[in-house]
């Protein structure tokens, strides 16, 4: 079962962007442009997610021409599971009691 982790609304916005392309390494400005978050909000969120081992972070391996190397981010497997569970629990996916009931019944019938 996916771990039940509580996220703030802004963290969920970042997670939604990362979940959309889980295999792609994203950089800060790319995420900031997509989510609309300011750097002062985005980076502390990425720090928290990396501390909780939900996000992998690494530097670009090769030095690109004309710009510094970028720091890159993507979800870990653990992060993918936690993000999917948190996003599925968001209002609009399905009424929460009904979802819980479906899961319980599915568990009982299998």
């Amino acid at each position: 079962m996916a771990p039940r982790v509580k996220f703030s609304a802004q963290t969920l916005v970042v997670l939604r962007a990362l979940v959309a392309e889980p295999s792609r390494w994203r950089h800060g400005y790319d995420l900031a442009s997509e989510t609309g978050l300011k750097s002062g909000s985005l980076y502390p969120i990425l720090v928290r997610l990396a501390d909780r081992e939900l996000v992998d972070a690494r530097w670009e391996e090769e030095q690109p021409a004309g710009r510094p190397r970028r720091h890159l981010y993507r979800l870990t497997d653990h992060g993918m599971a936690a993000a999917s569970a948190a996003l599925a629990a968001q209002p609009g996916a399905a009424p929460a009691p009904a979802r819980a009931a479906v899961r319980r019944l599915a568990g009982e019938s299998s």
Partner: protein
Amino acid sequence: MTARLASALTRTLAEAARLLPADKRPWAEALQAETDQIPAGGPRLVWLAGGFWLIAKESGMARRIGYWVGIAGMGAAAAWVVWLSWRAAGPADPESVTDRVRVLVGAGALAALPWVARGRSLFGPVADSGVARLVRIGGCAAICAMGLGVVRADRHGGINGIIGSGKVSWLREAAGLAVLIGAFAVPLVLRARRPQSEPGGYWMLVVAGVFAAFVLVPMQAFAVGVAALIFAATSRRSPVTAASWTVGLIASLPTAVAACALPFVLGNLFSAMFIVALVAAVSGGCAGAVAARLVPEAVSPDELRAARTREGAQAGAIAGTIGGLAAAAFSPILGEMMILGMLAGLAGGALVASVTAHLRARSTTADLSALQPELR
């Protein structure tokens, strides 16, 4: 001009990144590495400003500055109240001396409680929630305001003969303070000597000690008890959730307004307190219903029901306590509202949340029955 400013900020950011611990420094460097990609002008300056915020946050600077500003503010407020008490009254008035004791006990509780049991963080660092911080600062300010109210009442010869008049029993004052100190100190000593004993026994001692102190020295026990409650409820170890804080804080407004207005509108303190308790119970009930509905789904229906009732009771108690505390800060003759408000809010919140939890559990069972044929 902006290009020069951005360049200066970039250099300053690189220097400021040294304030971060080594494992966090790459994050500031990462932000800086992206700067050239950001459109020049305002957006780049905003991006760099975010870098300074990141450094302030991750180096713990913002928290440390906030903590020390808070401590200094509370210290200044407590010192001001004590100074007013000393300056105002004549040395021959025994009541003013007890007021000084009361004010000193309140200020001492604010200073000592975070330090007591700091190893276990029982009253220790504030929870990582803006509302918890607001409640802690507001609660400490309210206790200082209560001290000020006591001093002011004494300067004007008392309020309806309740505060600032009457004879003082030094024996009772001394015994009450000794019991109050013992209530907090004895469990700590016992725990240090017999670490394997049941913690429930210590808490029973604390409750019994505080109750005895309340009978002997109500004002002092009120101040220390409420300070302890505020610190414990807003500490990192507290089980109170951010949702309960927010809902309880909003729902405390009607109680606070009623408690401040009704004694003057009705002209009768006891009728006013009865109606305010009713308001606290009703607003606590509303807070309980909302908090219960905000509880996320749980695996087991029993867990969910218990969590909803617990959250509702917490939100109701918060609504009543904050409302009562605001009333007590407004006027010291409403000091009892702290306890009365909390009990009324707790009762209202627990009752309504329990009913809400049961009703929602029944509707979930109905959902289940409806879904069963589809799943087969």
